[in-house]
């Protein structure tokens, strides 16, 4: 069983390395990601959004719907933390406790 999983892991590693060979290099201007929408953002972001910071222009204007989702996720995370940590279970000695 151990040999089988080891063989499977090695096969998977080989597949992943083989797949990663087909990826474009970082900063390759001929890669698909850099040809389609990136040049348009770089050329027209200031004209269209009025924000000189390209990151802000993309984050809060072009993709503001995405940022709305991020904000909602953060809020849900906080609400879930409170819901989990503030349960009343397991607080048997709450009555006897005094404040230092």
């Amino acid at each position, binding site marked *: 069983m151990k040999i089988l999983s080891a063989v499977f892991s090695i096969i998977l590693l080989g597949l992943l390395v083989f797949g990663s060979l087909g990826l474009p290099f970082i900063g390759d201007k001929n890669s698909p990601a850099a040809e389609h929408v990136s040049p348009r953002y770089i050329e027209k972001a200031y004209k269209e959004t009025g924000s000189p910071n390209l990151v802000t222009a993309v984050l809060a204007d072009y993709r503001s719907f995405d940022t709305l989702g991020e904000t909602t996720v*953060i*809020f849900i995370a906080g609400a879930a933390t*409170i819901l989990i940590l503030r349960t009343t279970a397991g607080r048997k000695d709450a009555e006897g406790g005094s404040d230092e």
Partner: protein
Amino acid sequence: MNRPFGTTILDTAFRYMVPFIMVYGVYVLLHGEYSPGGGFQAGALLAIAVVLTRLVQGREAIFDMNGDTAIILAGLGTLIYAGVGVATVIWGGNFLDYATIPLDLPAKELRPLGILVIEVGVTICVMGVIIAIYDALTRKDDDI
């Protein structure tokens, strides 16, 4: 002032650090349009000011925020963000299309204004969530 475990060094460092952290947080929020920064970072900075106060001064902190208030603030921040989106639809544009804000300004100035409003919403949300999580982690059993 009653400080349970604050020493002079802690207290002095806290007095110098917290105001600057808060001012820097507001600066990061308002200047995020021109320089690296924005709502998420500003919210973390503002929350750290409150958390630091709680860390240094303990439960008798002079500058405190209740966990309930914090999570309500977080929801309010998310509501501001979503409200801007709904409002732009009502004003006859696409969702979150800031150019439809009915102010007498060119679109080039309206869009940064809309970005600033949603960044304020993000800041309030992140600040509230961090404070609420810290409060939930450190709260005692008997004050629920």
